[in-house]
């Protein structure tokens, strides 16, 4: 691999099917394994992408994920046209969640998603506009 030609993958995340949420992340994990990346790097990417994918399904009605792999990092860009996040600082706090009860009963909505993403990535950038959508850019260094 050389830096000028990153490997790129695109996924559509279905917002109507909570039970299949995570499929794009599982797919990316398989790809990274095939490339032969370090297992700790794969673990960090998997956790970050899964949490962002789940968030798109729970909070934003689905969206799209773009993954690019270069020699020095893996970059994930998750974009949705959901309601947006009014207060990003608040959303980043451990335990803060607006998830409905039916989602909680499935084991989500603990308000740990964004904090997990922060913890397992080297860079995290959230752009969001209320009523328009959210774009989360994350990267993990190899």
């Amino acid at each position, binding site marked *: 691999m050389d830096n000028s030609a990153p490997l790129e993958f695109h996924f559509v995340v279905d917002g109507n099917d909570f039970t299949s949420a*995570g499929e794009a992340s599982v797919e990316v*994990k398989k790809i990274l394994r095939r490339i032969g990346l370090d297992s700790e790097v794969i*673990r960090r990417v998997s956790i970050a992408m899964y*949490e962002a994918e789940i968030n798109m399904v729970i909070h934003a009605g689905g969206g799209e994920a773009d993954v690019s792999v270069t020699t020095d990092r893996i970059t994930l860009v998750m974009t949705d046209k959901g309601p947006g996040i009014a207060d990003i600082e608040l959303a980043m706090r451990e335990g803060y969640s607006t998830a409905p009860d039916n989602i909680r009963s499935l*084991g989500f909505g*603990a308000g740990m998603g964004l904090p997990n993403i922060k913890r397992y990535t080297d860079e995290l950038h959230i752009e969001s506009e209320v009523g328009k959508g959210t774009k989360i850019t994350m990267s993990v260094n190899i």
Partner: protein
Amino acid sequence: MTVNSVCEKLGLGVCNLADGEREVDGVYAGDLLSWVMGHAECSNVLVTIMSNINTLAVASLLDLSCVILSESVKPDKEFADTAKEKEINVFTSSLTTYELCAKLSEIL
């Protein structure tokens, strides 16, 4: 210790056996899947009462060695089918999460 030995020593029910020779390394217990996602380690046994498909996505992403559904939680057919398709070891037990963890601590 292998998944097969854990299954035998704890008298677990088999929901799906994908790779019984898989080595077990440590245990994590919890039902909040985001919490599990952030804290469980590769090859851990996961003890949980959460029997929805998302548990299997977490198990697959973290490379857990097996999932034990505690407290007599019964997986439905969709769960069992998905476990089979994703090749994830899943067991059941009538013991509580606490009892299972205590026993795992004894044998591991």
